[in-house]
């Protein structure tokens, strides 16, 4: 596939309010740089992320989706991130079946104290998605902005 030189992927990040969103804030407070491609949506818990939201993002032209939650065992709601882990595992197998690159979707645990990890994760994920090129398989062309 021909990858344009200046391909800037659209990346949607779902961050749980208690750990990862706070981790993202911490990376901001510490002025830790990560690409502007990443746009964060705040959700109460990673288990609020319906796999439908992820598919919706791909349909609307996102090139990568990352879900961040508290580390297993540290969920503010006790068990929410365990549900996320299972749901995303199932979503992976469906995306595999559809032939969508595994690296476009990612689940990562980032605690409120891990600002550096958040920035590094976003940096890495953006590079991975850039390497994959634009999402053409799942994007619905009818949704594309004219």
């Amino acid at each position: 596939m021909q990858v344009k030189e200046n391909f800037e992927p659209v990346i949607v990040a779902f961050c749980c309010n208690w750990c990862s969103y706070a981790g993202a804030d911490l990376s901001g407070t510490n002025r830790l740089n990560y690409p502007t491609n990443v746009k964060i949506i705040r959700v109460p818990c990673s288990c609020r992320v319906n796999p439908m939201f992820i598919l919706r993002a791909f349909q609307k032209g996102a090139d990568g989706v990352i879900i961040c939650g508290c580390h297993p065992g540290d969920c503010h709601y006790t068990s929410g991130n365990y549900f996320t882990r299972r749901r995303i595992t199932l979503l992976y197998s469906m995306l595999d079946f559809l032939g969508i690159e595994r690296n476009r979707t990612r689940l990562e645990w980032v605690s409120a104290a891990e600002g550096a990890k958040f920035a590094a994760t976003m940096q890495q994920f953006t590079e991975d998605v850039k390497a994959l090129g634009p999402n053409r398989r799942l994007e619905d062309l009818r949704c594309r902005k004219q």
Partner: protein
Amino acid sequence: MQRIGVFVCHCGTNIAATVDVKAVAEALGHEPGVVISQDYQYMCSESGQELVKNAIKEQKLTGVVICSCSPRMHENTFRKAAASAGLNPYLVEIANIREQCSWIHKDIATATEKAIILGRTAVAKVHLNTPLNSMESPVVKRALVIGGGIAGIQTALDIAEAGFDVDIVEKQPTIGGKMAQIDKTFPTLDCAACILTPKMVEASQNERITIHSFSEVADVKGFVGNFTVKIKKKARFVDETKCTGCGLCTEKCPMKKVPNEFNMGLDNRSAIYIPFAQAVPKVATIDPNYCMMLKTGKCGVCSKVCSAGAIDYKQQDTFIEQQYGAIVVATGFNPINLDKYDEFAYNQCPDVVTSLELERLMNAAGPNGGTLLRPSDKTHPHTIVFVQCVGSRCDDEKGKPYCSKICCMYTAKHAMLIREKYPDTEVYVFYIDVRTPGKNFDEFYRRAVEQYNVHYIKGMVGKVTPKSDGKIDVQASDLLANEQLHINADMVVLAAAIEPDKTARPLATMLTTQMDTNDFFTEAHPKLRPVESATAGIFLSGACQGPKDIPETVAQASAAAAKAIGLLCKNSITCNPCVAHSDELMCNGCSSCEKVCPYGAITYIDKEFRMPDRTTKVRRVASVNPAVCQGCGACTVACPSGAMDLSGFSNSQIMAEVDAICK
């Protein structure tokens, strides 16, 4: 038709330096539904809020978007401002263009572009916001303090003083914690026991304080104002209500070869024991790992000598359940295990001790009755070497990356006390830096150097080797003189790093509070909310939050108490209205949501529905108890029919955000 107001904050130069705020306000002004779009220097200031309030009134706004710092910072500020202008506070959305945009990006063009997208996302969401009303939930007027060290005791005393009942849960047979083991305190050289034990007695005599010693927290349920805690009272095989603490059993017990934890294993105690003379509660405890009666069924001496008949070999662990409005965590610290530090020969030579062991060696209630003697041959040491930062400020896997904060000061104290009591002893201190920020701290350290002639040498100790003549060879470098040193020492004292207590991690899981990578509890805000955890109703006291000396611990303990009292004073608290709700017409009663709910907030009710043909039909549908629901949203994803939704984070709102980002 929606009438949305957008307000872009400069935050001084914090945002304005990397984001063209005027361009953001201009671009968002063209978004559908936006009737007013303004920028201002400091939106959170009095005049900034006034701007928002006036716009709400004049423009009859139905939604507000603030492009500013993180919602974790000022969401409440703007919600309150909106409420005072007559707009439902939940019609306010924040676009985080500081922490998640201006502070992390340097290029103005791309940062501005991102800020516009973030603003547009918030506008898309606010279009679908609905007014939400908070419910009230009652507050149980009782507090739980986990940990009975100086932090826990101080917190409990302060809460009791304010007129609320407090329970202290302590895992050891007595309260007192680490401070009870310390000989003297810096920088005043007060006797630790003399200032701690009156507080312990005060706690035990206060009728509002209940001490559950030798107990652990087994389970925590519920939420702020209404926690249900299960406390495990471990079997001590002695009836607490009958034991008078006379100590006869401990004298008569034939099993006397048990390492004494209170003296850091430097001497022995009996299998039935009272940790120390001033223990509170002063009740004997049988150690089941060593008691002959419990192990083999042959002995029973203690029960024969006990005139109160308090010994009960058949005692079992018991559980009690109690409701609490607030929980204060005061689990404290421990010195790290030095097994991995072979270079300091800690496990090979009994004369290499940790600082806490030295405290016991110098304490009048310690193994040598207060005379400093070498543990190996009980002779008086003439040369003592102190090694600083053992495991602190360490980059490798063995140690801790942080400064343990208290070691510089207690080492100065030890050095001074030794020189004071035994002027014939030479004392060397090897340090990386001497850190003495605190009231009268630097003066104290200088006294050790100038008045007491303690040899402070900047440099690290490379190797400690026990020699055959009983002496210890300390090989070190003097960085300032740039030379290698060999010191023929009699004792070596290691200032071991401190780490959070091991019970803190499982406790954090039970309390659903956050911890940092070193297992210290994370505070809600590092500067402005230092004694609250991010989980409402859980407060932090003492060294469980980070390394602290005694004055700081006491200050934080009282601060945590003040916060807990503030909560307990209220008769009810407003609940988060962002809770799940079920569309009864779509719900098919499958129980998927009920199974994933961690709080048991979902029940099923049989409800009568009117059918199109004018008959009625009874159907089983989900019903959410909004007082119990915490709003995690697990049920919304589990629901196969899409009947479950979460207020404030509804499916349509998140979809709208996704669409706005991808547009």
